[in-house]
């Protein structure tokens, strides 16, 4: 039986259907979790997809964290449950304090809709274990507020704790620091994704679900989704799809 993974749907979510489609391809059973519900319906992991949760006119993700579903997600995360935030989902997680740092307006003050390359810093997490270290992964970004920010001391602490899991990289594979055209939003230290201290909640700005099929130009996002599906299956005590296929 495929592992059940929740996809939270806020009224302004607009990547929920893409995420559900990609989870299907990754061998999971997606479960829609409406923002007004307080139960996670026993899912093994949760994805907060991209979009504009409640319109985000004030600031991305600022209202979403007060929704009933987010109280449930916070409790789930507190118990060690796996939660992945993509784009607006990352913004919501940051606003809710479930991952460190903040996402500011892009340095250009313009929306950034383009392909980027990111590289996984760690491949020993629940969200990255199917990836290769530092191999550039091509996938789209599409956001107006994606500039990762924390103060210098906090950034140093993040690095020491190895909580940076993805960085924007340029064509040479080097970290794309702010000012480098390969950094789409001015994120400090080229940070594209982070993980919480306990390793069960992660967020990233790029969209792996839009890079999960060759026809769309890249399958590089699939590694992230597969990692999550595998980890969720293990957490649920199920045989992972990969192991099942191997038999």
């Amino acid at each position, binding site marked *: 039986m495929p592992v059940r993974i929740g996809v939270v749907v806020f009224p302004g979510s607009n990547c929920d259907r*893409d995420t559900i489609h990609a989870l299907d391809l990754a061998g999971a059973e997606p479960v829609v979790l409406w923002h007004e519900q307080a139960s996670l319906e026993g899912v093994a992991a949760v994805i907060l997809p991209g979009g*504009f949760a409640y*319109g985000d006119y004030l600031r991305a993700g600022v209202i979403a964290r007060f929704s009933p579903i987010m109280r449930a997600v916070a409790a789930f995360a507190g118990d060690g449950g796996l939660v992945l935030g993509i784009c607006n989902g990352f913004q919501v997680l940051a606003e809710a304090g479930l991952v460190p740092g903040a996402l500011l307006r892009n340095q250009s003050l313009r929306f950034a*809709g383009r392909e980027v390359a990111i590289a996984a810093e760690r491949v020993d997490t629940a969200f990255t274990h199917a990836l290769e270290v530092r191999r550039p992964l091509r996938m789209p970004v*599409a956001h107006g507020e994606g500039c990762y920010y924390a103060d210098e001391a906090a950034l140093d602490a993040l690095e020491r704790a190895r909580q940076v899991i993805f960085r924007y990289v340029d064509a040479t594979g080097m970290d794309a620091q702010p000012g480098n055209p390969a950094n789409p939003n001015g994120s400090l230290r080229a940070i594209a994704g982070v993980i919480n201290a306990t390793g069960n909640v992660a967020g990233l700005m790029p969209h792996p679900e839009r890079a999960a099929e060759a*026809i769309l130009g890249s399958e590089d996002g699939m590694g992230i989704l597969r990692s999550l599906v595998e980890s969720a299956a293990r957490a649920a005590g199920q045989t992972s799809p990969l192991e099942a296929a191997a038999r």
Partner: protein
Amino acid sequence: MTVADVPVEPLHRRLGVTDDELQAIRDRLGGRDPNDLELAMFSVMWSEHCSYKSSRALLRTLPTEGAGVVAGPGENAGVISIGDGLAVAFKIESHNHPSAVEPYQGAATGVGGILRDIFTMGARPIAVLDALRFGDPADARTRHLVDGVVRGVGGYGNCVGVPTVGGELVFDPSYAGNPLVNVMAIGLLREGLLTLASAPGPGNLVVLYGSATGRDGIGGASVLASATFTDDDPSKRPSVQVGDPFAEKLLIEASLELIERGLVEGLQDLGAGGITCATSETADRAGTGILVDLDAIPRREPGLEPFEVMISESQERMCAAVRPDQWPAILEVCQRWGLPAAIIGRVTDDGDITVVAGGLDADGRPAEGSREIARIPARALTSDAIVHARVATPPAHRRGAPAPGAPAAVSDRLPERGMDPGAVLLALLGSANLSSRRAVYRQYDSTVGADTVAGPGRGAAVLRVRGTRKALVATTDGNQAVGAIDPWLGAALSVAEATRNVSITGARPLGVTNCLNYGDPTRPDAYWQLSEGVRGLADACRALGLPVTGGNVSLYNESSGGRIAPTPEIGVVGLLDDISTLTEPAFAQTGDTIVLVGDATPGLAGSAYAALAGVTTEDDPPDLDLAREAAVQVFIREAIERGLVASAQDVSGGGLAVALAECAIWGELGATIRLAHVASPAVGLFGESPSRLVVTARPAHAAALVLLARQNGLPVEPIGSVGGDRLVIEATAAAAIGAAEDRGGRVADTLEVPLRDLQHAWEHGLARSLGWEG
């Protein structure tokens, strides 16, 4: 003379209704005068924007029949079956005047309005293409407009989660005071869910859901869209609607759920003309009437006058005709999506739009003590609205395009100006109109929806259709430069180029939507441009066998700076049966043979080269042979289907040299070309004669490709091969002309530019033109 003696224009004239039109209104009201509310309702519905009173007679000449057409003109959008039980809905619409007054909101609500036209029919919007036209990019006001419009398109489309996959961005001095913002939307629906804008069934409820009604957009259609206006008139800002993309997102989801669950009998979005338009159009189509309960309409603020409520163009509202037993379920859906919903009237059998103040009783009849404040036959507002016979007068000096095959003009001006063809090519590639649009489209989300196979940047956009092997291919094109010289040719060329851009991917064009942007129809020369444009559109669509499934007419595009160049913006959607055959314009592989299909005909007027070199309209634009165009498109689709094609590109803006340079830039591969028998280097390299393709094939397939072209009666010639890190074009004149002549005889003009230089010019041209980078 005292203040009281100052003559005041009568109300109807202040609302834009002429004396003759007032008489026609009386005729439709049994001879009586309309009251002020009724007059306000007529003024919006009889505006050019809502009534098409100047264009309706012309539009009847367009071909509308075609294979698979499920819904055509008159509906909110055209709908064409694509098999597998699916259909595609698409339409293009203008939001020119609002964008000139308030660029962000004007463009944003333009996106919102066209998306509503799509999902109102039961289709989920899957893509937006925006065709934008502005004045000189170096001008500060142009830059302000570009910035606002681009942010508006992105701000709305990005938030509702519909990818912006293509469009156009064109600069031409004629748009300085009157930019064009034309937005095309595409949706996908299961055929069984097709929903029409109709209010059938007397006794049914009329439900309004979505945003509350406010004072924004009062007279948007009549004041803004249907009259010539002066530059940046701040007094008209209140007529611009204000968009709320989050509300639109909720409206999309709620509407599609209502349709999916069979909870509506008919559905109409509220756009121009607001509640008056939605009620009268749906009633007229169903042959019914509607009793409007004015007091039941949810409002944003107290104190709205009845006329304001009836004609407000507040955005993000929908009007549904529903059975009484469906109401509780509708309310539940709307509440779940956080949308206010109210019963604002009843469908009747009297054919009238009747407005009642004071409420309805439990049986849906006017309550005791209520007042009837307006009663107008629904058809008088819509299908029986006034139609004007306008006068068309061609300009005194009309130009005829040279016949195909006529000898080229001896002087092409290229050598005379001492220009090096390589420098001309770089200047064209880096020009505001031909350089990469990336600086703009990177501000749009082009990949949300996870169906974008080819987004903005390289001709047509491609979207896969999930659950099938198919793909939809879409593009917009408009040729105003030639249109300014010959409006028939400009329109026909626009159709030819848009469909060609679809055909070179391997897809079969399904249908055409159009946005006709012209000047003041009461001026005979402007009306002539419109009538010639419609004739060109009709001729081209007939020749290519394509139905026109809908569109929009935007007139009065004039400002103190003059009238815009006639601009028929053409949107085309095509179907690729097997996405694995999708063909791209980029050079594919070193060693591939490059074949040129079609031949260069004389004439440089209207070309990018002419604009660059300052060639005036003393010259003629190249002519278009529609039968040839059709043959070219049939040929390339067949060649792709037979697997003979490695890449395919059409020759358009900037001519053959720019077409080759683009193939090289996108493929990151150079090429070596030899053009024999070039009559004139400028025509051969930079002329924009239509119906031409640059096709590449593996060497083993080249002979078959050439043979197929010949079998289709097309001129065809292998001109070189792919490879290297530079573009080399050697143009050998058949006779001694131009620079070659100066050098004494039959000598080749050679162009040789490193790929790196081509890329650099092309990538940075737009941002430089707009001052976005140094």
